[in-house]
């Protein structure tokens, strides 16, 4: 099923819709990222429930992070996280060198200032998935050069 295109387009429309209603003064600018993140949170919760229905119990936090980087990311974005770093004290950095939602946008520094809008939903997705696996966290994202991006997770 060619639903990758469908999800990509829906996601882009959501971002532009949220920001358009912000322009019309209905909502402050800072709220837009929060709205997108909250939507991602709810989706992440639901998704992880369906996904881990039949998987074995996770041994520890690192196991959960590896699951997110490998299986979860592969299912949602058709590839694995390229690099996972941690300081073993609750901070994880997930690096994706070719983030699926940004590849169509640019391949360098163009549109860098808009990248954060398109990452908010995914931050929420990760946060929601982890929350239903029992990990409360704060997820932020940064982009230095499209389409590579880093998701920073803080417990």
């Amino acid at each position, binding site marked *: *099923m060619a639903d990758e295109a469908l*999800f990509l387009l829906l996601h882009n429309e*959501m971002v532009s819709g949220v920001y358009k209603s912000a322009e019309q003064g209905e909502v402050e600018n800072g709220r837009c990222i929060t709205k997108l993140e909250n939507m991602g949170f709810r989706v992440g919760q639901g*998704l992880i429930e369906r996904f881990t229905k039949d998987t074995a119990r996770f041994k520890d936090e690192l196991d959960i992070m590896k699951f997110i980087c490998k299986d979860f990311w592969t299912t949602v974005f058709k590839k694995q996280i390229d690099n996972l770093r941690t300081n073993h004290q609750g901070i994880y950095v997930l690096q994706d060198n070719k983030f699926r939602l940004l590849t169509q946008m640019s391949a360098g520094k163009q549109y860098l200032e808009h990248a954060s809008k398109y990452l908010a939903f995914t931050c929420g997705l990760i946060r929601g998935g982890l929350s239903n696996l029992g990990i409360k966290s704060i997820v932020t994202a940064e982009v230095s050069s499209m389409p590579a991006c880093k998701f920073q997770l803080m417990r």
Partner: protein
Amino acid sequence: MSRPAHRRPAYHKINKDLFVLTYGALVAQLCKDYEKDEDVNQYLDKMGYGIGTRLVEDFLARSCVGRCHSYSEITDIIAQVAFKMYLGITPSVTCNNSSRNEFSLILDKNPLVEFVEELPAGRSSLCYCNLLCGIIRGALEMVHLAADVTFLQDRLRGDSVTEIGITFLKKREEKKYRRKK
């Protein structure tokens, strides 16, 4: 008790869930933002229009359908190829009038409402799947066909089936363009 070690879940099903859940979260957010059902419906239709104008390119690239010669052919392609490709269902097509420009797609299975039990209280005229109407309308407009697409019946609102009505607006030009040999 032995359990198959880490059975791989069906990936394409999870992918479909991603879209369905995202759509649900979107509608829930819209219901929070807008009080009137018409506003939500209109917003969904506009969003669908934006998606449809882009989706049609993806569709044409993937499906390689040939040129259509009649409205009923177009509606058949929408039902049997496009819906199958993106949502995995094949709605049935009926023609509603003798001038053959009004058609209905009857969906007996709608994957978008898989996780919806019922419409929230006070939202009885919400067209939950209005995005689909916008998508079809946008896609048709990109191939130079103006159409009116609405939900004629909706299972979530108490009707027996879910029916999307497509009304093609302008008459197609009679002159056929000859391809240069």
